[in-house]
């Protein structure tokens, strides 16, 4: 069994690091969709459901918080969304969670951290 994952980040490097970290965390990924910003992320979601979204915050066109808000408006409380970000302040975390994010991972991160945060959302 593998999961469908959407990775939203304007850095191709970070998208590859996230993919690699998911594999190293032992998470079985059947399909990866990639998007460079929130607008592309919404387009990717129109192409089909995913089991998990991992999103950066600081992106052009539609940032991560705007993207979370949009996903929740249009798709409800699924799929789970985990922010992957350099933002680590309590204000940011509270804001992300209030907009509908389910968790966050602060950069830099290890595969173990990915498993710890993402694992509970995958069945």
């Amino acid at each position: 069994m593998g999961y469908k994952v959407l990775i939203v980040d304007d850095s191709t490097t970070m998208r590859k690091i996230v993919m690699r970290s998911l594999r190293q965390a032992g998470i079985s990924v059947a399909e990866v969709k990639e998007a460079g910003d929130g607008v592309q992320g919404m387009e990717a979601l129109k192409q089909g459901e995913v089991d998990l979204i991992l999103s950066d915050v600081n992106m052009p066109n539609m940032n991560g918080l705007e993207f979370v808000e949009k996903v929740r408006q249009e798709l409800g409380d699924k799929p789970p969304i985990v922010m992957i970000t350099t933002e680590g302040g309590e204000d940011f975390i509270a804001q992300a969670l209030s907009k509908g994010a389910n968790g966050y991972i602060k950069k830099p991160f290890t595969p173990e951290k990915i498993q710890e945060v993402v694992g509970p959302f995958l069945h």
Partner: protein
Amino acid sequence: MPRIYQKSADFLISAVKDVMETMVFMDMSPSEPTQPEGTSLAGDVVSTLGFTGTENGIFVTSVGMDLARKITANMLGMEEEEIQDKSEISDAMGELTNMIAGNVKVLWSDEGWEMEISVPVVMAGKELEARFSRNLVEGAAVDFVNEDGERLRVEIRLGENPIENG
């Protein structure tokens, strides 16, 4: 020396070691912090990232192409020989600079200082030189060296008349 310079140096060392060990799997030894030198910084891959808030300024990183390629390969889990595209190296070094700045931002906030960081700008080539405004000549600069003697220089340059206390 304004306290913010010494604190910034400490934060740079902590941030770079954390990012390099966690994401690049590379141990780096820091030099003694100094003031940045002059109004320019040379290197094959030079990344700059601006910030505003309690202070205004920039983060700068500079490396040779060999170390930049090694860093990129390690971040992506690839062999160095596979890294041929300069844009891949630029993106990786930009992300590295972004993570370092993000780490420093969190440490600054613990001091009660605010910081909003911009998107990194990366130049990649051969023996490039980034030039800065004359009011961005003070702050903290640290050289980090790996076991092969390759150097990563990281600077935080602050505008004139920084705050004396947190």
